[in-house]
Structure formats: structure tokens, C-alpha cells
């Protein structure tokens, strides 16, 4: 059995790779290090780091953390440098936008200007901090998604985080719906294209109106499917107590080591930048 998202060489984006074939079973011992860790623990760690860096507003601290996170993701998941670079595109573009908006729209000491545009030192500092934070959280999210099978996460959340079985299995059923959506979309699109009048060039219609119709049909079909799924889940006894568990998911000693390691690195970096006097909090926004 293979682990996680599978061989995704050439997968155009993060999203398409997770939408691909459903992964089977839990990761084996041949899987990369991060793949073997408990999904709930990984999710909680990404959440904690994201929350902490929300309060950091100097460019240096998130840059250091980003480099460390990038090295961690590159070495502990099965992600080629090319795939990792490719996964950066959406949030790197966003980071660039954040940097330029802040550089141009913050009052302060002017370092460059042309016509109505002026770049300030304060704007560059805050923009740099926000852009590096975007990259940091982005690379953590990539590491999480690349190393975690969504099905294993839901089972882990149910067993390790006390998520109700009805909710957990409803979300899992929703995951199946999600995997079928592209095919469903194509079917509806074809059905509409058969009847709809062609464009002047003889192509199938591509107007927003046509798109709206396809989306609405998709919505109706999916609502029906949801109702049927709910009936079949209940008729198979979902929600009855007591439940037994096949393949229990545990939080192992290595998971606690991961927690300790990540929190220690985060603490050390924060302490170091604070000691050097470069760490800044939300006060940086006030200029």
C-alpha cells in the first residue's frame, strides 16, 4: 500500500493532486517520516504555529521560520523540489501582492517615489513580514497536505480529538462527493451543451449564464445525493452506540517528540530574534 497523495509528478497544483485517486489505508513504515506521524497532531501543530506567527510583524523572524519549515518539509515528505516549487505559486503570488500593497500604502519614511507612488521603509518592513508569514504558513500547509491522507485525518480526529462519528463519517462521505464532482461537472456540462445554441464559431456555450445553470444543476444533484447518503448511512447503523473501531489510531511517542521539536524550534527562534532586538509585534502596524 502506498502512502498519502501518491506519485504526483506533474500535478499542476496542490488541489488537483488531493482530488486525485483516493489513497488506500494508513501509511506504512516505508513512508517518509512526516507521513507516519499522527494526522491530528500535525494539524494541531500547523494551527498553533500559524496562530503564533499571526502576532509576529518583523520580516526576520518569519523568514528564519520559513527556511526551517521549507527544509523540514523537503526532507520529511515525499515531495520533489520541483513539486514543492510548483506548490508555492498560488501563495507566493499572494505574498508578492501583500508586499507591494503594504510598501505603497503605508505612511512613513519615503525611500523611493515615482509620480503618485511612494514606497516607505515602514511599508517594506510590514509588507515583508506579512509576505514571509504567507510563505511560512503556505509551506506548512503544503507539508501537512502532502503528508496526510484526508481519510486518515478524519479517522484520527474521531479517535484522538473526540469528533463525533456522525460528523466524521458525514465529512468522509462529503469527500467522496468532492472526488466525484469533476466528473459530475463534465456530465452536466455535456448534457447542457447538447441542447444549448452554439456560439458563432460553433463552440459550446461559455457564457456566465450557461455557467450559472451548470453550477445550479450541480447544486441540485448534490443536494439529492446528500439526502440519499444520509439515509444509507443511518440505515447501516451510523450513530448507534457503542461503536467498535477497526485499526485504532494512536498518538505515539514519536508524535510527542514531533510536538516537542516543533515547539522548541519555534521558541528558540522567537527567543533569538527577541534577544537580537529584531522581533516586533502588532505594534509595528501603528508605524
Amino acid at each position, binding site marked *: 500500500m502506498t502512502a498519502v497523495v501518491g506519485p504526483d509528478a506533474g500535478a499542476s*497544483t*496542490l*488541489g488537483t493532486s*488531493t*482530488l486525485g485517486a483516493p489513497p488506500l489505508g494508513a501509511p506504512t513504515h516505508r513512508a517518509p517520516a512526516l507521513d507516519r506521524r499522527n494526522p491530528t497532531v500535525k*494539524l494541531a501543530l500547523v*494551527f498553533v504555529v*500559524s496562530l503564533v506567527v499571526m502576532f509576529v*510583524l518583523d520580516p526576520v523572524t518569519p523568514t528564519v521560520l520559513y527556511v526551517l519549515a521549507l527544509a523540514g518539509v523537503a526532507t520529511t515528505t515525499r515531495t520533489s523540489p520541483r513539486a514543492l516549487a510548483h*506548490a508555492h505559486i498560488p501563495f507566493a*503570488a*499572494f505574498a508578492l*501582492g*501583500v508586499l*507591494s*500593497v*503594504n510598501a*505603497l*500604502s*503605508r*505612511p512613513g519614511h519615503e525611500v523611493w517615489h515615482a509620480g503618485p507612488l511612494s514606497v516607505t521603509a515602514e511599508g517594506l518592513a*510590514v509588507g515583508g*513580514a*506579512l509576505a514571509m508569514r*504567507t510563505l511560512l*504558513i*503556505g509551506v506548512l*500547509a*503544503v507539508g*501537512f*497536505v502532502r503528508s496526510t491522507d484526508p481519510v486518515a*485525518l478524519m479517522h484520527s480526529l474521531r479517535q484522538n480529538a473526540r469528533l463525533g462519528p*456522525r*460528523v466524521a463519517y*458525514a*465529512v468522509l*462521505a*462529503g*469527500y467522496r*462527493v*468532492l472526488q466525484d*464532482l469533476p466528473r459530475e461537472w463534465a456530465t452536466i456540462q455535456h448534457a447542457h451543451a447538447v441542447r444549448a445554441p452554439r456560439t458563432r464559431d460553433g463552440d459550446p456555450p461559455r457564457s456566465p449564464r450557461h455557467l450559472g445553470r451548470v*453550477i445550479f444543476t450541480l*447544486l*441540485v444533484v*448534490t*443536494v439529492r445525493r*446528500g*439526502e440519499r*447518503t*444520509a*439515509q444509507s*448511512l*443511518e440505515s447501516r447503523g*451510523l*450513530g*448507534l*452506540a457503542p461503536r467498535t473501531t477497526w485499526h485504532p489510531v494512536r498518538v505515539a511517542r514519536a508524535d510527542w517528540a514531533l510536538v516537542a521539536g516543533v515547539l522548541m524550534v519555534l521558541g528558540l527562534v522567537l527567543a533569538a530574534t527577541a534577544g537580537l532586538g529584531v522581533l516586533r509585534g502588532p505594534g509595528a*502596524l*501603528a508605524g
Partner: protein
Amino acid sequence: MSAPVRTARDPRAWEMKDLMLTVVLGVVFGFVYWALVQAWNGLAIAMGPAGDLAQHVLLGGWLLVAPVVVAIVRRPGAGVVAEILASVVEVVFLGSPVGPTLILAAALQGLGSELPFWITRYRRFGWTVFAVSGLLGAGLVFWFSAFRGGWYGQEVFALRLGMQLVSGVVLGGLLAKVIVDALARTGVLDNFAIGRAEIGHTQAERNE
């Protein structure tokens, strides 16, 4: 025939079909959004710094799922649950690079969107309630987004707030009512609270 096995369950607990509806709506909205974002990314890159501002136009769309689900299911908490589940789909299954803090933002959006329905005790579903829902949904989460995005102290702060509120009312409020009414007309919602309340609902709307 033997009596069906029943475990003691909280009568306020959600019915499975309501839960499933909430999940699948989160999935569909998440999917359509994901498809739109792919298209949008190219545009945002082309627009440079303006792309960061222009994305506020679409903000209201993220709020849609909460009022839609509240209007169909009509249970306290439906909006918050719907937003959280939709964000879980985005973060876990679609791999949103925003990361898990998106789930926090979603909870705030859901809270804001649900507030007007809660105040009217899930009995009024006219245009005004939907509009206020979009306004509060956008308005409440704005302060969190502003902190997360470092918008405080920017010269375009008020512009951002204005764009998000307008988008919230139109895309996150009024559009939700259009969708709910259209769905109800198809008959797929007949087995849900909205279908059961259909007669009373149209009556109430006439009196509005």
C-alpha cells in the same frame, strides 16, 4: 417485526440528513470556489498590487454557504457549522494554503451570518434578513482578517472595509436568498425544514 434499535439521543441533536446537507453544500461551494480561485489567481498576478484589493469584490461569496444552510435547515448553529465544515473541506481536502487559521475565520463568518436569523428566531427569511446576514458576516470577520492581513495603518483600510461590506450584502446575502428560493422551487428541499415551513414561509413574506 422487532422495534428498531434506538439509542437515547439528545432531541436537539442534528438529523443525519441535515448534517449531510450541510457537508455537501460546503463541498459544492468549496469546489466551485476552488475552481474560481484557480481562474482568479492568474488575474491577480496580472493585476499586481491591485489584485490584493480586487479580491475583496468576491469576499461575499465565501459567506454564501451559511445563510443558505440556515434558511434550509433552520436550526441554531447551522450557519456556524456550515462555514466550519466548508473551511475544513478547503483546508483538508482542497489544500488551501491559508492553513488552519481559515477555520477560525470561517467560524467568525458563520457567527456573523447567522446572527440576524437567530435574532428573528429562524422565522423570517425575507430580503432584509438576508442582506443583514451578509453585512454582519462580512463585518464581523473583517476585524480578524484585518489583523491577520496587517491592514491596520494602511491608507486603503476604509476602502477595504467598504468593498467587503458591499460584497457581503450582495454576494453573501441577497444571492443566498436567490439560491435558496431557486432550490426550493425545484422540490429537492421538500424534506427539509424549509419545505415543511413552505406555506407559513410564503405567508410571512406577504405580511412583511
